[in-house]
């Protein structure tokens, strides 16, 4: 089968790999129909995630059709159309029993701090991902979700990670009616966090970034105020000026380890690897949120340590919430929102490219060229399966 393969920092190509086989009685094999490149894939692409092995296939946002099931799989049949949450989870461990599916303890031997994730290095279990023609899908009775007939396939693929992560980011901010919410990052997760903040009754939503086309897109798609941080002298002071001198009620970090905006943070966190990524947004968020405010983090950082202003967080009495999204628990409500017209996730897709052009797709997304917000990869032969992609309004 054709699959994307990592060759080193900033280098990927397509290769022919053996088609995955059932390795466990709860496995299924899924033929991929659509697969996205996620912003967090860029951390892998840039060589920042430890134990990213050459030859790995990335991709944790994908939908497809079941082509084989293991002997213990009862909920899926060959031919089913499924969206596959990025979390690989067992459903019965201590954490899954508490609906913390993103923290499953039974699917990633290589680490205990993070659960299993498709195509996200051996630090998250060493699974191949969905930027390929076929994927091995473990614990197939609980992970994959049947795609309802009325759900557009491109909305479905964004339900595997980007939309639930953005929604959970807003949810962890514990937004109350009238709150001022500052979202750092105008990428897909930031856009969905901003839209979700409105659903939760925010009074103001402000998105911060430095890429003009992304800010314009955010203003249009999320109907929010925007700040270009290159035009701001000091972020905390600027946010205070905008919020009656108090600061925002909620700040949400949708950027993570590769934040721009501070030379020293970039040098120590990204170039020299002296800390687990640039903590620029964490600094801005702690210092821009009001006393007693809430800070929600979904931006991805490395496993070591970051220079973080914990003293200010203590003195301000902040509540910090963060996690990998527990995708499965969000799906019913988010599908309701899509059906009701509250959200139309597929509007953020700017690029649809054949899997064979994966190197170009990564470069466009990474370098923010050609107005790229979200790139979707189409494996060869996927459209021959006859899915009604693109036919819905």
């Amino acid at each position, binding site marked *: 089968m054709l699959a994307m393969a990592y060759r080193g920092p900033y280098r990927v190509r397509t290769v022919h790999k053996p088609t995955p086989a059932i390795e466990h009685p709860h496995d299924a094999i899924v033929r991929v129909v659509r697969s996205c490149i996620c912003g967090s894939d860029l951390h892998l692409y840039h060589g920042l995630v430890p*134990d990213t092995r050459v030859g790995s296939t990335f991709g944790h946002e994908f939908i497809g059709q079941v082509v084989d099931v293991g002997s213990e799989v009862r909920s899926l049949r060959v031919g089913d159309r499924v969206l596959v949450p990025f979390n690989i989870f067992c459903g019965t461990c201590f954490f899954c029993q508490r609906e913390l599916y993103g923290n499953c303890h039974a699917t990633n031997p290589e680490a205990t701090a993070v659960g299993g994730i498709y195509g996200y290095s051996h630090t998250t279990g060493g699974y191949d991902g969905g930027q390929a023609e076929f994927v091995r899908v473990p614990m197939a009775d609980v992970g994959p979700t049947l795609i309802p007939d009325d759900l557009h396939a491109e909305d479905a693929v964004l339900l595997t990670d980007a939309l639930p992560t953005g929604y959970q980011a807003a949810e962890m901010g514990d937004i109350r009616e009238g709150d001022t919410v500052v979202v750092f990052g105008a990428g897909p997760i930031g856009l969905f966090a901003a839209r979700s903040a409105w659903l939760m009754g925010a009074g103001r939503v402000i998105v911060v970034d430095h890429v003009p086309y992304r800010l314009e897109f955010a203003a249009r798609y999320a109907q929010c105020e925007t700040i270009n941080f290159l035009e701001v002298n000091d972020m905390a002071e600027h946010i205070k000026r905008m919020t009656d001198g108090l600061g925002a009620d909620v700040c949400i970090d949708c950027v993570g380890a590769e934040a721009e905006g501070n030379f020293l943070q970039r040098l120590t966190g990204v170039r020299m690897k002296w800390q687990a990524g640039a903590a620029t947004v964490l600094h801005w968020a702690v210092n821009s949120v009001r006393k007693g405010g809430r800070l929600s983090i979904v931006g991805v950082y490395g496993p070591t340590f970051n220079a973080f202003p914990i003293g200010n967080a203590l003195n301000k009495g902040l509540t910090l919430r963060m996690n990998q999204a527990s995708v499965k628990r969000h799906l019913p409500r988010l599908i309701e929102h899509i059906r009701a017209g*509250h959200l139309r996730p597929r509007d953020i897709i700017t690029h649809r490219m054949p899997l064979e052009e994966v190197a170009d797709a990564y470069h466009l997304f990474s370098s923010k060229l050609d107005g790229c917000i979200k790139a979707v990869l189409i494996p060869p032969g996927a459209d021959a399966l006859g899915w009604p992609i693109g036919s819905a309004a």
Partner: protein
Amino acid sequence: MNDDPYRPHGQSRDAHERDMAAGHVHRPPLDPARYAHIPGWGVDRDKRDRPAVPMERTPPRLDGIHWDRPPQQHPTVEVLHSTERSGLTPVYGTTVPPCGLSGMLRRAGFRYSENDLRRWLILLLADRVDVVEGLAGDVATGHVPRLYTEMGGRAELRHNPAGAVRKAVTVAAVAGVAYWLWQRRRRDGSR
């Protein structure tokens, strides 16, 4: 701006600014009509409508579970596990097992817990060694890697031609200087 109250010596210009400086700020009640243009504004105000509230929820709302614990996957390749757990998990990935010098480094890294910085630094080093091994492996199997294409060069040329030219000039300049230094050293050595 001299009259900016946010400057170190700036003074509040009116009562509102004095109140803001002192935190005596009271927000007026919110008018939902202001948000009529935003689809779905406020429909999840009630926290009972938010699917991940409370954070921990038992029993889980999952269909299709017919096992107490998943059966153990049998290893067919070398799989390393964290020293912070007592063995392999029931399910795991089997892609790209450790091999070569990078594999030796990975095995060394996994001797340390996730709590130990050495584990992560050794793994990052292994990743870099793996890249060199990957290039060597390509050449050994007769495959000349198309580095520029693998780095998205076609997209760069199409969508950022000026940047592509800048990078080409920079690479050529660095290579030229390196060649000139090497030649000079060779000439000095032969004297």
